[in-house]
């Protein structure tokens, strides 16, 4: 049953990967990358149960944290144009 869930999550991941390759704008690619990150967190949790090693949940937690930080950083870059200067109080419009 965990294997079925893992296969479904892999299908989800490959469909999101197709969107990341085809996406017309860069935001489509960022959206697909965000979805891939979420699915990878779930896949790590399911694989931890599938192999009987729940230590994988720590990796899933870390991957979720990294995913949101990366997504917000990339989106701030494409929104503002840079990542802000040191001491720049009005970097965000």
């Amino acid at each position, binding site marked *: *049953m*965990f294997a*079925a*869930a893992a296969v*479904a*999550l892999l*299908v*989800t*991941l490959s*469909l*999101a990967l*197709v*969107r990341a390759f085809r996406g017309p*704008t860069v*935001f*489509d690619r*960022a*959206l*697909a990358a*965000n*979805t891939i990150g*979420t*699915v990878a*967190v*779930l896949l790590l*949790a*399911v694989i931890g*149960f599938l192999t009987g090693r*729940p230590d994988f*949940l*720590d990796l*899933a*937690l870390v991957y*979720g*944290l990294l*995913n*949101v930080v990366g*997504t*917000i950083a990339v*989106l*701030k870059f*494409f*929104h503002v144009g840079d990542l802000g200067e040191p001491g720049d109080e009005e970097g965000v419009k």
Partner: protein
Amino acid sequence: MIVLDIASWALILLGAAFCVTGAVGLLRMPDFFTRMHAASVVDTLGAAFILLGLMLQSGFSLVTVKLIAIGVLLFFTSPVATHALARAALARGVEPLLAQGEPSSKT
């Protein structure tokens, strides 16, 4: 505990089905904002059902606490990421695909 097993398998399969549905929507929706709408299914329903099913499978232990932590993390960060994505796309001039004057049957 056959009842708990059946319940957790049902939840995991439901979550996997929601994930595949969201990915198909991500691939086939016509417009960036509708694609974002479809992708949020994976973040909310798919993740919640799969994590709930895994929680039922693990019982009361540290594993359940970690699963709850992952669930809370996804619950709070995915709306933030989606909001930032929509705001950045609007600010950079991605136009939503709106309905024109007369309703057309063309897909």
